[in-house]
């Protein structure tokens, strides 16, 4: 029983990481109606930046905050200089740009920091504090994820800027007519998604180790989470992340074995798309005219 509980709790911890990645995907999806395939590689690159700063002797949390800030600015820059020029182009063009970004970030990380696998430190103490049920890193990851989610909720729900960002993603024309600077809101959305991705990357790196391909599997789980929760519903995507995390862990431990874990994500993706494409909590928009 203890072992089972441990699998569930550990699943919640990785689920938090999937939730963060899913949330980043949903944020981009809401304004572009496309899945940003480069989201994982952007997060990987942010993690490398944090690693490089830590290597230079910077304390972990300062490197953490700086990496998030750099990712925020970097995300904004990517939208302004790369995505915005193609925003009126066909879907295929944008998808190709996403895949191009993926390849560029992957190659740049290997070029700058080599392809050898590196150990990324966990900021949480190694000596167990919570007994055998949950490791400190799992507990810390869960805590960081929850803080991020709460901050995002407050930002989007209660601040004028958050409201303007939601409005700009939903209805750009009307947003312009109330004075919202829509193109900056979209850029800020990219910045936030990149920052959330950076946090997810730094939380997962101590588990999967740091290398240019570390986010490949994570992005798949994140995509499965977003689809399961409903790709247009940020809170559904978060819940989807936790569900996928627990399912993956429990099924991996008791049913299919760890080698086939990634299959869980793929099965979820196919199942959701065939059975319920709007996901568990995908919004059905009601409009009366």
């Amino acid at each position, binding site marked *: 029983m203890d072992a089972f509980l441990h699998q569930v709790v550990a699943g919640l911890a990785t689920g938090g990481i999937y939730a963060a990645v899913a949330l980043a995907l949903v944020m981009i999806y809401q304004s572009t109606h496309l899945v940003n395939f480069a989201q994982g590689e952007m997060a990987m690159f942010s993690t490398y930046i944090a690693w490089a700063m830590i290597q230079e002797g910077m304390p972990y949390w300062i490197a953490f905050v700086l990496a998030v800030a750099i990712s925020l600015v970097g995300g904004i820059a990517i939208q302004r200089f790369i995505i915005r020029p193609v925003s009126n182009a066909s879907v295929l063009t944008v998808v190709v740009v996403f895949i191009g970004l993926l390849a560029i970030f992957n190659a740049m990380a290997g070029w700058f920091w080599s392809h050898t696998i590196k150990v990324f430190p966990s900021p949480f103490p190694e000596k167990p504090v919570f007994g055998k049920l949950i490791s400190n890193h799992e507990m810390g990851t869960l805590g960081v994820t929850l803080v991020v989610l709460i901050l995002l909720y407050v930002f989007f729900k209660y601040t004028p800027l958050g409201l303007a960002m939601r409005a700009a993603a939903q209805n750009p024309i009307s947003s312009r*007519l109330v004075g919202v*600077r829509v193109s900056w809101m979209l850029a800020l959305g990219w910045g936030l998604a990149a920052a959330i991705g950076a946090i997810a990357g730094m939380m997962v790196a101590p588990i999967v180790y740091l290398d240019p391909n570390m986010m490949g599997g994570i992005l798949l789980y994140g995509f499965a989470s977003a689809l399961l929760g409903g790709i247009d519903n940020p809170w559904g995507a978060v819940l989807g992340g936790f569900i996928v995390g627990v399912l993956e862990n429990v099924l991996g431990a008791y049913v299919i074995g760890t080698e086939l874990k990634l299959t869980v994500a793929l099965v979820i993706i196919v199942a959701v798309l065939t059975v319920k494409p709007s996901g568990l909590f995908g919004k059905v928009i009601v*409009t009366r005219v």
Partner: protein
Amino acid sequence: MTALLEVKNLEAAYGQTKVLHGISFSIEVGGITAILGANGAGKTTTLRAVCNMVATKGEIVLGGKRIEGLATEDIVRLGVAHTPDGRGTFVQLSVDENLRLGGYARADKAAMLADIDRMYALFPRLGERRWQQAGTLSGGEQQMLAVSRALMLRPKLLLLDEPSFGLAPLLVREIFRTLRQINKEDKVSMLLVEQNAALALDLADHAYLLETGRVVMSGTAAEIKNDDNVRRSYLGY
């Protein structure tokens, strides 16, 4: 009287299709100008051209300042609110959030929140539905919301695109009564586009008649109302 908005030789086109062929009109400070015309005359395009939502040529002067070529959001920030064609409701947001967005460009947040309550006093129906998703409102309620959202800006100039469209006569009367009240009390100037010519001429002080992108007649509302051709073609008696 001085003009708040002065438009000269305004042309507008969607791609290759030219819709406005050099129209000129003006709105007095505190005045209401109506633009009348049949479907496809270019009424909605005129409003879009004023806030740079279509490609334009010509001169647009707001309070002595040239505004053509400015970004839509910057024109809005100069005090031009627009109740667009199709109402422009943020359907997934609540009524309250729609109104808060209306005042988004304002710096005086406390007065902005007070204005939200004023809108609920003006349109009690919106107050009853303040936490409801705006997409679930009826057409009339969404029209009230569109007008309220525009007023939340405390605009100098309100651009109204067919406020009577698709509404029951009783509601139309209510909305037009409120528009007159806002014009009198808050000194908001208005540019009104309407198919319902009789209604528009009752509210407006000046009117312009558009036909396929050209002004074919202009004058005070009274002059237009008494013109035989207008009466036959647009007022129907």
